[in-house]
């Protein structure tokens, strides 16, 4: 029982990592109806920026918020300069642009910061939290907390603010939104900026656990993608829940069912089975289109 709970808790901890990145993916999707494959690399790059600031002596929280701000601007700029010109192109062409962004950021990070792993500090206390015989690192708990706070903020933003409403409208129907006076371009840039900011937070929460290196996000992105989809690509809450689900599922499969070698494949197969039963994900909205 003990070992089982250990696995569950370890799964929740990694699940927290997936949840935060999945949130960034959902953010972009809610704004643009596109899955941004470069999300992980932009998050990683922002984390490197934070690391540079902290390494130069800046206190953690100042560097943290400054990085979030820079990431916001970076995201908005990318939307304006790189994504806007191909907006009208077929979906797959935009996907290729995202792939291009992915390799650019990855390569730049490797060139500017080398591939040796770097330690990224955690703002949370070093002493672990013990619940019975189970070990929780304070950082992992803190990171999950930050993710939940972000989730609450996002929910409130989309639900209760006019700006959030405008963004949702643009994602649903850009043409009509333009007709009622919403500045579509501005909303898109805002959406990208927010997604990049969330990604930066995710990166800074993840890095202390997995160490900072240019390939930090590539493994995580896959899980985050799966998590976002299983929870429902247009539901932030679903994405977070999906993240935890995927984390725990992966651990339990690895420990008790199929062994570590095939646990990733198995987890993905299970997710696909879920999608076959509920094609929009667990909490996603079912889209009905008129013929």
């Amino acid at each position, binding site marked *: 029982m003990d070992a089982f709970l250990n696995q569950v808790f370890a799964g929740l901890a990694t699940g927290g990592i997936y949840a935060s990145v999945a949130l960034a993916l959902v953010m972009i999707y809610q704004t643009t109806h596109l899955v941004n494959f470069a999300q992980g690399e932009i998050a990683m790059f922002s984390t490197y920026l934070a690391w540079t600031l902290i390494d130069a002596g800046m206190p953690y929280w100042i560097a943290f918020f400054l990085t979030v701000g820079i990431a916001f601007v970076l995201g908005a700029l990318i939307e304006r300069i790189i994504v806007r010109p191909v907006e009208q192109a*077929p979906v*797959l062409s935009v996907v*290729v642009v995202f792939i*291009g962004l992915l390799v650019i950021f990855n*390569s730049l990070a490797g060139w500017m910061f080398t591939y040796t792993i770097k330690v990224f500090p955690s703002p949370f206390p070093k002493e672990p939290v013990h619940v019975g015989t189970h070990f929780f690192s304070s950082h992992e708990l803190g990171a999950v907390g930050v993710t939940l706070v972000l989730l609450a903020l996002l929910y409130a933003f989309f639900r209760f603010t006019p700006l959030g409403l405008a963004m949702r409208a643009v994602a649903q129907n850009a043409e009509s939104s333009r007709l009622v006076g919403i500045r579509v371009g501005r909303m898109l840039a805002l959406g990208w900026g927010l997604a990049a900011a969330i990604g930066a937070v995710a990166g800074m929460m993840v890095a202390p656990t997995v160490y900072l290196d240019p390939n930090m996000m590539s493994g995580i992105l896959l899980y985050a993608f799966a998590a976002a989809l299983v929870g429902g690509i247009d539901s932030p809450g679903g994405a977070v829940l999906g993240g935890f689900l995927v984390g725990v599922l992966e651990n339990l499969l690895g420990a008790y069912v199929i062994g570590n070698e*095939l646990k990733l*494949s198995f987890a993905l197969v299970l997710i696909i089975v879920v999608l076959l039963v509920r*094609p929009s994900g667990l909490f996603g909205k079912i889209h009905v289109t008129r013929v």
Partner: protein
Amino acid sequence: MKPGSKPVALTPPASAWSRQPRMLIPAALLLASCALPFVMNNYHTFQLTLVLVYAIALLGLNILTGYNGQISLGHGAFYAIGAYVAAILMDKFGVPYWLTVPVAGVVCLAAGFLFGLPALRLEGVYLALATFALGVSMPQLLKSRHLESWTGGVQGIVIAKPDPPFGLPLNQDQWLYFFTLAVAVAMFVLGWNLLRGRVGRSLIAIRDQPIAAEAMGVHNALYKSLAFGVSAMYTGVAGALGAIAVQFVAPDSFTIFLSITLLVGIVIGGLASISGAVYGAIFIQFVPNIADQISKAAPWAIYGVFLIGFMYLMPAGVAGAIRLAWARIRRMAADTRQDSG
């Protein structure tokens, strides 16, 4: 008609020369490609063989994604299956190399069809994830203990290089090039026939207006699964040929990066276009090398810039851009003919 007014032609008359380029250009290219191995060194011949292999794989993916609208981020898996079928047959069963290629095709046809069946329920992003899962799992499956005795596990399988038959005066690289070229031509002709006929039209109809297509009597489920199967068959054949050319298969050769590269290839080359497969193959084979020459420090950043640049200039891919340019030329020619007539 009032005297003195110009007659209005509704469509420019199809003059003889505007029809012929369609046949002339591929024939000329074929002739040129036959001559190439004799003017290049073996290394370049080897690279061209790889371009042909990619072209077959890209045509396969294009059938599924370009013509039928089903996105696949996992076609590297079918490429891997084809490659391993060829390797295992040659290494463990002593099957001659030329026989492994059709066997790989058949195996992948079945595999693709079987995958396509459950995939029917999934659309868009969700299908992307399912295929992504396939692409990511393949190296793991290949490495796993359970299949190790067949696949050689992480060590992979080394394949012997085939010799030219009947004592032809060619070296191994040149022979392999011609063999691959022959298979490529056969596959392209097959694909062209398939796509310009009823099957092609059904696939495109399903892509654009699935409900209307069903209402018109197109059996959506059957065609979609078949599209998966045929697409996988093409990619499997390419995988087998690729394995023979490289003479080595290992799980590391078939990571998710391969699947993404194939997707990039068809988009850059041009979706729903047969010639696009060739342009895309040239791009994915040579542009990374070019990027490496431009910048040793961050070559993949240069590659990314190329990707984005191509998408700006040619959102419909190279084939799309050529089509547009050709249409423009024809329009200008028709206008001048009209003016002078």
